[in-house]
């Protein structure tokens, strides 16, 4: 009887631990995503052409791409389209704004946690107003309905990003996920 009691207690404790850990899983996964290097962007301009990427342009792109991810993550998490203007323009801005609008209507939101980005500039236009880059990163995406996590996944993803010079700033005009080959 004593053994039985003891094993029941152990099962209950174990179950409790599993439940606690399971509920903490998203946080743990996020903690993993936030490991050192998360969200850092390293841009390589090797092979970029036809125009050579100036040092100031490279720094500006690094800064703006970091801001783009940060703003997009915050905008989709909090459903705030006003955060988009600083880093997005044109169809990309419209696309994200539409998604936020739909999220607001359905009461859903999306959480992103991006890992380190390996970015290669693949094209820099001759007159210096458009720049294309290819980014490979690992992201964790969670779909939430209210506060309930509907789906969570972590994928390695490649993006094709086009930056254009708007007034005095580089902004993301196209950011398209590419199928993994």
């Amino acid at each position, binding site marked *: 009887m004593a053994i039985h009691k003891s094993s029941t207690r152990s099962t209950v404790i174990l179950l409790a631990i599993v439940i606690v850990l399971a509920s903490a899983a998203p946080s743990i996964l996020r903690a993993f995503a936030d490991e050192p290097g998360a969200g850092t962007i390293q841009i390589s301009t090797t092979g970029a052409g036809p125009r050579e990427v100036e040092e100031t342009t490279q720094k500006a792109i690094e800064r703006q791409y970091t801001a783009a991810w940060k703003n997009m993550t915050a905008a989709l998490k909090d459903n705030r389209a006003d955060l988009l203007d600083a880093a997005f*323009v*044109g*169809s990309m801005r419209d696309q994200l704004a539409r998604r936020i609008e739909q999220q607001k209507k359905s009461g859903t939101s999306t959480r992103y946690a991006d890992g380190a980005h390996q970015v290669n500039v693949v094209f820099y236009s001759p007159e210096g107003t458009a720049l294309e880059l290819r980014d490979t990163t690992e992201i964790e995406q969670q779909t939430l309905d209210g506060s309930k996590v509907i789906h969570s996944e972590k994928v390695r993803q490649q993006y094709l990003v086009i930056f*254009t010079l708007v007034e005095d700033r580089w902004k993301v*005009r196209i950011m398209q996920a590419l199928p993994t080959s």
Partner: protein
Amino acid sequence: MRLGSIVMIVLLLVLIGAGTVQTKSLHISANTPETALQSFFAQVKAKHWDDAFAMVQPGSGVEKESFIKDLGGNNESLKTISALQDVKTKILRESGNESDLRADLQWSTAVGALHESRDFKLVNDEGQWKIVWTPPAKNDGPPKPLPTTYLRWDVVQRGSSRDEWGVQNVEPPRMRIISMNAIEYQGGVTILGEVVNEDTVPGFVTINAILLDKDGNSIAEESSFDKISHTLLPKEISPFRVDFANRKLADVKSVRISPTNILVPAAADPVVGVFNQRIEKDPNGKSILRGELVTQGGQTVNIPHVLATFYDQSGKVIWVSDGYVDKALLPQQAVPFAVDLRDDLAGQVQNYRITVNYYNSNRS
């Protein structure tokens, strides 16, 4: 206590009297040539033209209208938006009933302070000193209105649609800095140079200069401000000067010049000719570049601005100076101008070039 009241009233009157005498002493008095001239300019300063004209010795050619135009300006010239700020007088010659005086006038104008040195003759007229007014030199006949047939560039702006990616826009005109020189002057660093519009459309240019130290860090940043002609027609050259106060050339490793240019609407008129340019010494012994401005078109120029570029033997720009002309340019009428030249450079100047910039009150 009536006595007390009387004392207080008397005291008040004495104080008012003291204050009034103090203020009044700055006003009309013509007992000496110098005070007469001071009083005259006090009236000019207050724009009391009648009182000022009353201090002028009547004579041929002295008309009140031209007197007011001479001192108060007309045709929306710089003088019309100037106020006399300060006057310093000096007796040049005194003999009995006649005196020659020099007045150094400081005007506060819309473009900053302007200094003017003017000589006057005063005569004693029954105990009161009067100013012998020299009417301004009359031009040959009235202004000739000429039709303006020069072309004008207009920039048609695209409607501000939100996304204009890929839509063809007109680029700003190509501007090129054709010379640049950094010198040390009066405890500061000055960047001099010339910029040309190489394009076929007019452009608006501003020059920003940043001084960099040996580590490439910015030490100071300044712009050409009004030491440039901002609107340049095709192939037009303008000098520029950027002044950095309290800097040493030895601390400067390099200079970053960033011209900003945009396409702007502009008119090819007016064309201003610069005649009889010559370097002279003024009465104080200072080197001055003088000349006359004449508009060749039919348009009036309200405020002309003269920029002078001085070159040395090798063709290098060694100084840029400027000056505003306080008279308006009427068609075909010559208006004199004078621009300072640094005395220490006068000997090195081998060549110079005058650029005329202008502001018209009806310019859009």
